């Protein structure tokens, strides 16, 4: 097992001192915040007592989570009907979670999954939410990530790169933004998903993204984070997409990085340790990745700008506090991870809580900070795509030998 760095954990007294102050002005926002803090604090208290008798506490319930995910990968309850147009997402969330847990999947199983994803691919390029559904950029991102997580030649071979490139062109708008699907909505997810799949499968061409960086910069709000489209409120999910996309385009200098840094560092909750998605909203474990992931780009950008003042050993957030939030507040004892205490488990939160946990554990491929048991250590991720680092390297190696398809640009 790898060498681990010593961790700095907050004691209960320090955490309790961070309680929300409503300044005698109770509003909907403050009431909700205080309720969440109460449930979170009771979890921290519980674990504080447990730690006295158990040095491995908190423990990541690896087997329980793996069992929950493996079950879901096969069969899902009727309540998942509302996700019937996101089945490649269900596959990706499951497979990526298992990869983070370093769970082995039998080759025959992999082959079955590849076969199903192939059924979701449209003859016109891109992947839909299920067999026979129209291709959708988000489902395409999920399907490509799932196939690259499997990482077999069979999986790579499913992706029709020429058609995929045509599909991306069909969604491009003159200003460089992207529709999510034919006649669908436009927001910053589009540019990110298009960039992610095109970089991963080596079909990227600068022409496809002409103007995209400028459009994305228009989504940076006065708060510093990015929003869905120009004018909207800064938001964790869209901020990840915005910064990751700018980074992939090598145009991060176009945005106000000081403002971004101030906004994103302030999203870590002072008591809970997890991240919120927007100013004055509640903590949610999924932002462990959406916000946490952006810190990796931020780190890299600051390092390029001014190496001597960057601490290479640490991200610019409290890594231990995030791990504590995920491990103590977001694990369901029967397996699966959750948004916050009291919420039901689902594959989405399982995937993004684990992805965030991995980010908080690995500052680089060398430095590892692991809260709780040593077996909590997860595989490191590649932040551009959110597949494991190894999967990303293997995928890029595979596709770099294939030529970028030449298509007639519409």
């Amino acid at each position, binding site marked *: 097992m790898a060498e681990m760095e010593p961790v700095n954990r*907050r004691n209960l007294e*320090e955490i309790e001192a961070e309680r929300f*102050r409503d*300044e005698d*002005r109770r*509003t*909907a*926002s403050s009431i909700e915040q205080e309720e969440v803090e109460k449930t979170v604090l009771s979890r921290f208290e519980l674990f504080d007592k447990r730690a006295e008798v158990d040095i491995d506490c908190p423990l990541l319930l690896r087997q329980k989570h793996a069992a929950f995910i493996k079950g879901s*990968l*096969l069969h899902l*309850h*009727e309540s*998942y*009907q*509302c996700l*019937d*147009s*996101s089945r490649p997402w269900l*596959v990706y969330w499951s497979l990526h979670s298992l990869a983070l847990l370093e769970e082995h999947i039998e080759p025959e199983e992999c082959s079955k*999954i590849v*076969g*199903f994803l*192939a059924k979701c691919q449209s003859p016109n390029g891109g992947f*839909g*939410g299920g*067999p*026979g*559904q*129209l291709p*959708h950029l988000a489902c395409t991102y999920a399907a490509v990530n799932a196939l690259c997580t499997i990482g077999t030649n069979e999986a790579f071979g499913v992706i029709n790169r020429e058609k995929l490139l045509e599909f991306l062109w069909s969604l491009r708008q003159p200003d460089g933004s992207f529709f*999510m*699907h*034919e*006649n*669908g*909505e436009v927001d910053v997810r589009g540019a990110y998903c298009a960039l992610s799949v095109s970089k991963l499968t080596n079909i990227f061409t600068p022409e496809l993204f002409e103007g995209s960086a400028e459009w994305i910069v228009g989504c940076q*709000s*006065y*708060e*510093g984070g990015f929003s*869905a*489209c120009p004018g*909207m*409120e800064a938001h964790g999910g869209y901020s990840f997409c915005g910064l990751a996309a700018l980074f992939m385009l090598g145009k991060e200098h176009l945005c106000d990085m000081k403002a971004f*840094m*101030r906004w994103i*560092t*302030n999203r*870590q909750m*002072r008591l809970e340790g997890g991240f919120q998605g927007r100013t*004055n909203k509640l903590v949610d474990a999924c932002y462990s990745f959406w916000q946490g992931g952006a810190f990796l780009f931020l780190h890299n950008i*600051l390092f390029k700008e*001014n190496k*001597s*003042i960057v*601490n290479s050993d*640490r991200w*610019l*957030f409290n890594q231990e*506090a995030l791990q504590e939030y995920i491990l103590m507040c977001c694990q369901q004892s029967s397996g699966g991870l959750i948004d916050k205490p009291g919420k039901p488990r689902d594959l989405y939160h399982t995937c993004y809580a684990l992805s965030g946990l991995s980010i908080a554990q690995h500052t680089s491929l060398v430095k590892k900070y692991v809260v709780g048991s040593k077996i909590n250590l997860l595989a490191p991720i590649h932040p551009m795509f959110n597949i494991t680092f190894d999967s990303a390297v293997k995928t890029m190696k595979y596709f770099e030998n294939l030529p970028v398809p030449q298509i007639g640009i519409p």
Partner: protein
Amino acid sequence: MTDSSSDCTYEEEYVFYKNRPHWKDVTPVPQDDGPNPVVAIAYTEQFREIYDYFRAILRSGEKSERVLELTNDAAQLNPANYTVWQYRREVLSHLKSNLSDELNYIGETISEHPKNYQVWHHRRVIVEWLKDPSKEMEFTNVILAQDSKNYHAWQHRQWVVATFKLYDLELEFVNDLLLKDVRNNSAWNQRYFVIIHTSGFTPNVIKNELEYTAGKIREVVNNESAWNYLRGIICHTESGNITSEEFIMKFCEDLYGTGCRCPYLLALIVDICEELFELGASDEIFSMQRALQVCDDLALEHDKIRKEYWKFISRRINQALLHRTTAA
């Protein structure tokens, strides 16, 4: 919005498509998951059947009243199915259907599923087709009354306001929301959106907004939304500098003087010190030494969760000081 009792009657009266005489001519098409399905959802019989018929229609390309009904049933069971909504729009446009009815219909669906991308997008397309935004403000009012931070509702509202130039009453709406909950960041964001698209941040507007925001900060000091908005205003001053606004410098110093150690105040003080230094102005109150001290206070006491960030800012300040010394 349907309540549970009407849902029940719906269940009782439900007739499967295979038993509907006017659907007899259609042969349902089962989903092709291949030989080894994964993430297989345990569809209800009703769900499975409706989508089998929908697949048959997609294949035949039929566009008729009965298909509208079918897409309605399909969308109710999975409002996130964008293929269903897209096809429904093709049918609506083919049949030249009454779009006001469609607007009412999608309104009910949004009320049931207010956090779904597809239903909001459908509404937007219908409003575009109608070229009539007259119901949109009231509609988003209702949705925002239930959840004043619903991102989709705000996005729709901004689109309507900008497309149809309905800015007139918007600031009043924002003011009301901020009176109800001064911590509502979506409302602060809308305030910025309205101003930037109407009066713009002219010197006069800046003065008013600074006073308004300072007032809101004095009411609730630890309200990050107001502090962020304050910084948003500053970007629009002639120089874009914090330190060119006497008002802000005085506001910060007065607040600090009352013993306030709110992290957003301290962060702004650090920025003031750094900015003055960069501008080459030496200031006794806002000095770099003070900035370093405040960073320490933040890292160790007032904003401990962001210790790494404050240590980084300290290093940035120290480096700037070192450069200046070396240059001299």
